[in-house]
C-alpha cells in the first residue's frame, strides 16, 4: 500500500464530513442547483462557481456529496437487474462493512485523526446493477489481474483503473464481457502492495450510462 492510501481517504472524509455549518447561508446555491451541477446539467462556468462555493462551505459540500450518493444509487438501481436486487443489495452492505472498518482502522493507526463515516440505513435500497464481483480490497496478482463484475445484459462496458490520486493506469472501452484482464504492462512501475481503484461504466443504447461504485484491489 502506498503512503497515499490512508491520506486520500482521510482527506475525502474530512472534506465531506457532515455537520458543517454554512458560513453565509444566504449565498448557498439552491438544492436544485447543486443537483443540476452533480448531474452535469449546468454550463461549466456556472458549475465551477458552485464547486468553488462547496470548497468554502462545508454544508454545501455535504449537500453535494448527498447528491452524488443519490445519483450513484439511482443509476445503479434503474430498470435493470431488479431480479437480483435483494441479493445484491444485501451483499453491497456486507461488502462495505469490512471496508469501512478497515478504513477507520487505517486512519486510527496511521494518521491518528479518526473521523466517523456517515452511512444511510440500508433498508429500502435496491442492489446496484453494475456491481463488482470481487471483494473490495482483494489482492490480485499483476500477472493475472482479472476484474469481474455483473451488469445489465446487452451493455457495453468501460473499465478504468487508476491510483488513489486519480492517475489513470488503464482504460478499456467497448467491452462486452463482464470481466477484464488488466495487461501486466499497464501495471509496470506500480509497487506491490499498492491499492488501486477501478470503476465500470455500463452503456445501453439510448440510456444514460450507469456507474459501478468505486472498488479497490491490492496489487501483488
Amino acid at each position, binding site marked *: 500500500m502506498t503512503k497515499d492510501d490512508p491520506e486520500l481517504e482521510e482527506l475525502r472524509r474530512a472534506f465531506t464530513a457532515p455537520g458543517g455549518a454554512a458560513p453565509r447561508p444566504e449565498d448557498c446555491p439552491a*438544492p436544485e442547483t447543486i443537483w443540476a451541477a452533480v448531474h452535469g446539467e449546468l454550463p461549466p462556468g456556472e458549475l465551477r462557481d458552485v464547486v468553488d462555493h462547496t470548497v468554502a462551505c462545508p454544508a454545501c459540500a455535504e449537500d453535494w456529496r448527498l447528491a452524488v450518493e443519490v445519483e450513484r444509487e439511482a443509476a445503479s438501481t434503474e430498470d435493470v437487474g431488479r431480479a437480483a436486487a435483494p441479493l445484491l443489495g444485501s451483499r453491497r452492505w456486507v461488502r462495505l462493512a469490512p471496508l469501512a472498518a478497515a478504513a477507520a482502522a487505517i486512519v486510527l493507526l496511521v494518521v491518528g485523526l479518526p*473521523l466517523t463515516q456517515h452511512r444511510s440505513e440500508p433498508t429500502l435500497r435496491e442492489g446496484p446493477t453494475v456491481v463488482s464481483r470481487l471483494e473490495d480490497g482483494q489482492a490480485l496478482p499483476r500477472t493475472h489481474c482479472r476484474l469481474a463484475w455483473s451488469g445489465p445484459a446487452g451493455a457495453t462496458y468501460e473499465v478504468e483503473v487508476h491510483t488513489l490520486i*486519480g492517475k489513470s493506469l488503464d482504460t478499456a472501452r467497448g467491452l462486452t464481457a463482464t470481466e477484464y484482464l488488466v495487461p501486466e504492462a499497464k501495471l509496470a512501475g506500480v509497487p506491490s502492495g499498492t491499492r488501486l481503484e477501478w470503476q465500470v461504466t455500463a452503456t445501453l443504447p439510448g440510456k444514460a450510462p450507469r456507474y459501478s461504485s468505486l472498488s479497490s484491489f491490492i496489487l501483488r
Partner: protein
Amino acid sequence: MRAELVRAVARVCPPWLADRADDLVQVALLRIYDVQRRSEGKAELSSFYLQRAAYSAVVDEIRRRRRRQEVPLEEERPETHPAAAQPDPESASAGAEIGRAIRDCLGGLVRPRRLAVALHLQGHRVAEAARLLGWSAKKAENLVYRGLADLRGCLKGKGMGR
C-alpha cells in the same frame, strides 16, 4: 408515484431525519403537484424528476435544521455501522480541524487545481470531473495530481501532513 417517492426519500434521508421521512415525502408530493398544476399536467414525471424532488425536500429540511442548529454534529450522529469504531470527542474535533485546514488550503490553490481536487475529494473519478468541468481527461488528471500535491504541501505546512 408515491411508492417511488418513498424510495427516493429513503435513499437520500439521513438516519437522524428518518422520523421525518413521511413528512418529506408529503412535501415532495406537494411540490410535484404544484409543478403539475402550473404546467397544466404536461410536466414529465420521470424517475429522475422524482429523485430530484426528494433530494430537494430533504436538503431543504437539513438546511432548515442547520439554521436552527438542530443538525447533530458528526460525533453525535447515530452510528449505523456497528463494526466501525466510535471516535472520542477529541478525535472528532481533530477531524473537523482537518476539514477546515483542507478548505483553507484549497482556497489558496489556483482555480483549476482547486476545482479538480474538490471534485476528486467529493468522490468523482477523474473522467467524471473532466466531463463536468468541460476538460479533457488528461487535463483533469494532471490538475488532480498537481492539486493534490499542492494540498499535501499546504497541509504539511500547517503541521498536518506527512
